[in-house]
């Protein structure tokens, strides 16, 4: 079970969180063509290594935030509140 560092609540067990997927995916403009929406809804990269992803602390502060996680090892390299950069020196 991963230990996830919530930017607001500190390190907590994975069971308190919900996974939100790749944080680098951006919602297309509302008038974007259909293929762009298909991409957005269905297609995800499966990178090997550090991935910027979203997590939701449902059993805590109820905030979404960023986690930099190594997909090969589950190592959590850093976390950051929405709109904040990952803390320097933490990956």
């Amino acid at each position, binding site marked *: *079970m*991963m*230990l*996830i*560092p919530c*930017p607001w609540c*500190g*390190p907590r067990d*994975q069971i308190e969180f*919900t996974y*939100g997927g790749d*944080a680098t995916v951006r*919602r*297309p403009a*509302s*008038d*974007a063509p*259909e293929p762009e*929406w*298909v991409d*957005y*809804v*269905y297609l995800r990269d499966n990178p090997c290594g550090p991935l910027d992803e*979203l997590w*939701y602390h*449902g059993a805590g502060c*109820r*905030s*979404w935030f960023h986690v930099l996680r190594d997909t090969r*090892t*589950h*190592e*959590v*390299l*850093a*976390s950051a509140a*929405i*709109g904040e950069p990952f*803390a320097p020196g*933490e*990956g």
Partner: protein
Amino acid sequence: MTQRFRLPSGGIVDRTQPIAFEFDGTRYEGYAGDTLASALLANGVHLVGRSFKYHRPRGIFSAGTEEPNALVQLGVGANTEPNTRATTTPLRDGLVAAPQNCWPSVRFDVGRMADVLSPILPAGFYYKTFKWPASPKWWMRYEHFIRRAAGMGHAAREPDPARYDHQYAHCDVLVVGAGAAGLAAARRAAESGASVIVCQQSPRWAMQFGDGNAAVDAVAPARWIDDASTALAASPDVTLLANTTAFGYYDANLVGAIERRADDGASSPRQRLWMIRAKAVVLASGALERGIAYANNDLPGTMLAGSAAIYARRYGVRVGTRAVVFTNNDSAYAAALALHDAGVDVAAIVDARDEGAVARRTDERLRAANIPVHGNALVMAAHGNDRVSRVDVTSHAGQRIASIDCDVVAVSGGYSPTVHLFSQARGRLRYDTRTASFVPDRSPMAIVTAGAVNGYCSARTAIDEGAAAADEALALAGSETVHGGRRSARDVGAPQAAPFDGEARLRVEPLWSVPAPRGAKCFVDLQNDVTVRDVELARSEGYQAVEHLKRYTTLGMGTDQGKTSNVAGIGLMARALDVPLDVVGTTTFRPPYTPVTLGALPGIHHGAHVEPVRRSAMHDWHAAHGARFVDAGLWKRPHSYPRPGESEDDAANREARNVRENAGIVDVSTLGKIELQGRDVAEFLNRVYINRWDNLQVGRCRYGVMLREDGIVRDDGTTSRLDTTHYLMTTTTANAGAIMQTIERLLSIDWPDLDVYATSVTEQWAAAAVSGPKSRDVLARVVDIDVSNEGFPFLAVAPCNVRIAQGTIPARLFRMSYSGELAYEVHVPADRGREMWEAVLAAGEPFGIMPYGTEAMSTLRIEKGHVVIGSEIDGRTTAFDLGMEKLVNPNKWCIGKPLLARPALTSPDRWQLVGLCAESGERVPRGAKIVADPDAPAPVPMHGHVTSWCYSPNVGAWIALALVSRGRERHGEKVWAVSPLANEKVQVTIQAPVFIDPAGERLRG
């Protein structure tokens, strides 16, 4: 009841405390401190079970967790536990155990036939039965017998009466294994002021170290252990867990461990599951001895040499009268002396190594004991029926050297480090040719190894490594970042192995099997009856990868997971392929290290404690008034309120009829309630709902539908505008949490520019819906605002006060309808819910108001064709399918809209919502499918399926909602609702999905 093989003194057993127990129907006696195995051996009992496949007689092979043979059915009735290792089961008064896998008895077992038939039961024979004989019919028949013949113990049929507990813990350093290395590590870590947890699977500290008498720094082992454990017990931040097995290593240094407490049926909890989050782990898990494969090396009386010594020293038990020791390393010489000291006649030491290696060991003690040593020699075969009686000793070339009568063969093939947790910590293993074993190399996790897990070693080396490992673990723990839960150093490996000085580490000349004649059974894996020949067969049939070898031969499977056999199996495959062992590699070590009682994993979280229960503020009133409850997610909701003598169905029909005729009240507190505030709420609602919201006036509410990103309908509910910038959204009960999560995500990530704040207020408000033609009369008597159709029209919202006997309750009144009748919702602060409920009921008494439950509510909504999550909104339907396409506003964007135009979602053949009516009065079967001709030959073309169905007391017939292909074009068509499972069918007429008041006049009146 004599313990014929018990020594008069020595060991940890308390001879003043005899303990009576029963095995295989016979009563025996042992002593406090015994294990079941040591007590059986003290009584001369070696034969304790039959083997898995060939039903061969098997004895006690080891003295610990690695035991492959001595698995017993422990206890009776609800407390029985299968596959329990006799070697780790503490003896207690009244213990009852039975042998497994034999019938009618362990001495006379019918299944023994399998051994005679063994030539046709090679490795993989079970898989081969899939292909031959070819008929599946036959396979179904004999597969049953294979399963019954091969087997272990049986699980209890009754619920487990024991209690299990969970404990979470955090520490700087977790020490796994409290042998000499572990105790040294724990002591060093504790001295530094770190918080330390030590877990140790045996009941005592450093038992193996304590068995010996070799002083370390002129301190006797017993004294050293006593000093260390006393110091640890006195340290403030040290938790010592005996009888606790660390079984799994998980992400971010989370270690799962099972603490076993007294298994007497009275102690509670019986076991405790520890989940320990450690900043760093010192793994001092030791090493396990392994055997050597020779012909009939499974006969009872065959035992690991180190284990035979343990029985002598630790339990004061002679494991036999005359022993032959067979070894490829030095450790067995000490074991031979221990047997000799215990009064066993050691007939010979058979050492597979050359004379030079052997000469080194012909020391004074051996000569004094007069133990002959055969160098360059092998035990080629053992003979005997239910016990070893004789062994043949030969040269490597097979030339006969001696034939020796004996009742014990003490065998040592070297030691395999217990690397399981290290491997689970993603540690890489390295094959160490000096100890002929896989040892820890490097792990990316904060884990450091010490002692015999790095390769069998002396106590001196173990203690030094323990202290060094503690220093390294402390450094790792200290470098951990507070937030990251990670350390800055990476890939810290095991400490450098001590220089090989002959004593520090045990040198082993690998010997996995002897060149026994074909046809002889030389077992590699005793628990799964895997022979040397099976490994060779796997190779010749192409199953050469180590994972294939395991699956094909079952080597390393079962409850022991190959603790004494894996490395030998790898060695044999390497020999067959003529490659080094590290080329073959190991199978993956997965948790758990030893079997974990299933009851310990859920702990107290079973039955009513699996999930929390949510109750509305009116719950106690419902219970006091005869409500039958139904689960709605975590909520308990009243299903109906049956009166004395009334069935639940009759009650629901009465309640539903009363709503249409008079008035009813239903608890709707469970609906998700989300308050939205801010300047941009209208824009936000425009984006999440398919319909338009920017024209909603203060004091009005509106029905809305949400889509998923892919265009499928997700949820529905109402949103009310309470004030200029203040809205209240309701969601379905089931989706309340998920919608809140989505809203948080949209607002914080997708649209942070919107000025909207969301707060879940589901728990803060109690809510009741008052429905029926007389609901206005009822409400007029309890609220302090004008509820006339002009003053408070359909879809109006207003703050008000509910009058109670003494004073008023602040409330919100909504005019909305789910039942299709004139209806209102009253929301009050949750703690006033029951007062409000009772006030409405009192006011409604003259009008015939009755409470109604979810069943009547469902009937009412089916009559009106209102869709619900899980039935019509089933994750596949679009707004068009559900007849709600007019709600989709063409002039704005919303979530899900961009993908709505995809061809599959706009196909005219899609299943569309319709109503069905069984005019015959017959019942619509449960889970019915819609077909044109129920008697057509299978496969019958399916036109759709029923989504909701009920008896409608207001229509006077069974009605249903259904999704039917091109359903909207087919109103008036007669089709069949069939359930082949229930063998029921009924003819139904397709119609519009509304059975009552199609024009909707009642709810607006």
